[in-house]
């Protein structure tokens, strides 16, 4: 009995107490919460940045593809100015290309994409391009704004980026 009490008195305590564990856990949880929230916010921010970057790139490519063909077109068939000379907009544009083909760029709202097709001059079904010109398009507006129908304004919104272009028909 005497030896046990002596052992108890001389033995040095080691390890950590429950209170220390709880305080440590609370501090770590607090820091973890802050860092976790920050990471979540950063992830959201990065996603938004990538979307804007993708949208911007998509607008550039789409504008380029359509403008190249429209610039050298012979005439715009639709849209054209209204009878009272006011501007007229639509989600599609139809024009006669440099080579004489009737080309249409149109917005497919259900798929949120812009597509291109060639309409035959005579009887026959339109030939659709296998791939869309652009995807994830929120809106597109083609506007005829010149009384000579030589100018087409294009407004696009893709993933929060906006594109604003005008094409002057050089051949008209």
């Amino acid at each position, binding site marked *: 009995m005497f030896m046990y009490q002596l052992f108890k008195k001389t033995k040095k305590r080691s390890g950590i107490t429950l209170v220390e564990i709880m305080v440590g856990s609370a501090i770590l949880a607090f820091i973890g919460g802050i860092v976790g929230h920050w990471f979540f916010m950063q992830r959201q921010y990065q996603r938004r*940045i990538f979307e804007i970057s993708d949208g911007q790139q998509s607008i550039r490519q789409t504008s380029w593809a359509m403008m190249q063909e429209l610039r050298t077109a012979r005439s715009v068939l639709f849209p054209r100015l209204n009878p009272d000379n006011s501007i007229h907009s639509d989600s599609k544009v139809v024009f006669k290309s440099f080579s004489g083909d009737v080309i249409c760029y149109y917005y497919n709202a259900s798929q949120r994409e812009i597509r291109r097709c060639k309409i035959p001059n005579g009887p026959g079904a339109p030939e659709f391009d296998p791939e869309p010109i652009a995807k994830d398009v929120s809106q597109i507006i083609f506007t005829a704004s010149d009384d000579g129908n030589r100018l087409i304004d294009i407004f696009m919104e893709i993933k929060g980026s906006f594109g604003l*272009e005008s094409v002057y028909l050089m051949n008209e």
Partner: protein
Amino acid sequence: MKKSGFSLLEIVIAISLAVTIFIPAMNMFSTAGQAVYKTRNFSFANSVARRISQRLMVMPFEDIEEVPLPGVALCDAPDGSFFGPFFNNTASSAGLRRITQVDMPEFYDYLERYNFRYSLSVSNVSFGDGDEIKSVGILITWNETDKAMMSRLYVYVPTL
């Protein structure tokens, strides 16, 4: 008996220090993000300038006039400017729509947030035999976190 290993306090301080150093290091991602926003605005400003340049081609020569700084705002642009009216899905002037909070809320918010404006600097060049050209400087200005930004494009419009 000699103590060995780390105490809990040491570990907590070490983690706090690591986090304090780590967070500023991660801020470089937000810097990259700001660069994307900047590029988007420059890209948009270029497209606005191209739009104006194309419309100058169909304008009557004598109607091409100076628009001094600070220029015309793209949102709520007055009628007769390059951006008003903006679109019309109907078959008469009754359906004209403009870049206003009501007609185009998202686009309007974007333009208003950065205060996009355009100005024109027009110089006449005469060749003496009746031929004339106009040298038009198109300035697009906007604000990014109180910093004034500008993009410019020069076009030459002949009388013909």
